[in-house]
Each structure stands twice: as C-alpha cells, then as structure tokens.
C-alpha cells in the first residue's frame, strides 16, 4: 500500500474535521451567500 496516500488522506480528513469544529463552514456560507459588489467587478 502506498503510505503517502494514507498519510495525505488522514491529514486532509483531520483538517476538514478541525475546520468544521472551528466553525469555518459559517464563514464559507456567509461569503458565498453575499455578493460584494466590488469583488465581482461590478463596482
């Protein structure tokens, strides 16, 4: 078995879980739901 694959897989699983526990999904949600007019080049 490729060790690198399992190391990476667990690392990213851990990162995802940690980020979710830290409530990062909320920041993703707010940013994705709001449109900052200058950020999309309108203003």
């Amino acid at each position, binding site marked *: 078995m490729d060790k690198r694959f399992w190391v990476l897989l667990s690392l990213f699983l851990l990162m995802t879980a940690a980020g979710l526990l830290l409530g990062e999904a909320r920041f993703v949600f707010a940013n994705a739901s*709001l449109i*900052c007019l*200058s950020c999309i080049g309108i203003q």
Partner: protein
Amino acid sequence: MRTRWPWAIILGMLIGVTLLLAGCRPDVPAPVRPIKAEVGYSAPDFQLTDLNGRQVRLSDFRGKPVVLNFWATWCPPCRQELPIFQDLHARRGDAFVLLAISEGENREDVLAFVQHYGYTFRVLLDPQLSVGRTYGARAIPMTMVIDPDGVIVYLRQGTVKTGELDLVLRDYIR
C-alpha cells in the same frame, strides 16, 4: 327668542361634530401599506442584537427616520463608505437612527473592526443573514432609508455618495 333655538342646536351640533372629528383625528389609522422590503412599502420589522448584547427592534424607532446599512468587514466598498456614515451620525445622530447591520459575522470580529476605526454608530449582528435575506441584501453594500412612519423611501445598491443621505434625510427629519 323661541325661533332661535333650532339654530343654536344646529350650531352646537356642528361645533360638537367638529370637535369630535378633531379629537378623533390622531386615532384615524394611517393608510396601511403592505409590508415588503421595497421602496414605497412598509419595512418588515426585525429584531437583532447589537454589539453590547442588547436586543434592538426596528419598530423601536418609529417616529424617527432610520438608515439601514448592510455591510461586512471584508467587503471593500462597505469599508470605504463607513466613514460617510460615521460623519453623518456624528452630525445628525440626534435626528435619525443609523443601524449598520453586519452580515454573517461574529461579534468579536465586528467589535474589533469597529473599535479599530472608532465608529460610534449602532452596529447590529445578523450572523445567519436572516434579516439580510428578508431585505434582499444579497449584494452588499446596500443602504435603505425608512421614514418616521416605517415606510421605505430610499434604496441604494453599492456605496452611497457623500452628501447623498443628507439630501434624503432632510425631508424626514422632524
């Protein structure tokens, strides 16, 4: 003498009716406008928490014009226009209410931002974007003016220009 009686009665009734109507006048309900987050409609009421943890209702401010600003600390045009609001608040803060509604952010981040720039106007927290959604504030910044009767009279998408709100508010400051 007797012939004057009917006249006295009629006059008395007229005066009475006039007084009655005048007395009733304040109780006559203002024309009911449908509730909708658009210019010309009654602003939907909401309740949010300010940075001090106090509950604030829009309807608390009936009788004064209210300026609603939807913003976020990470939005460059929002950051850019906040000094205009601070200036307006410093000059006319007694005559109107400014509610800067922070969209989707937590108290710590907004408080740190507001303290850093020394803003003194009232900031409300809308972490779930619920009021923002009701008011159609999908694109920010967005600014609304609500007249003393609770009717939305002005809507601006994007940054407001210096002096623009002074002109709008002039008609509504009593």
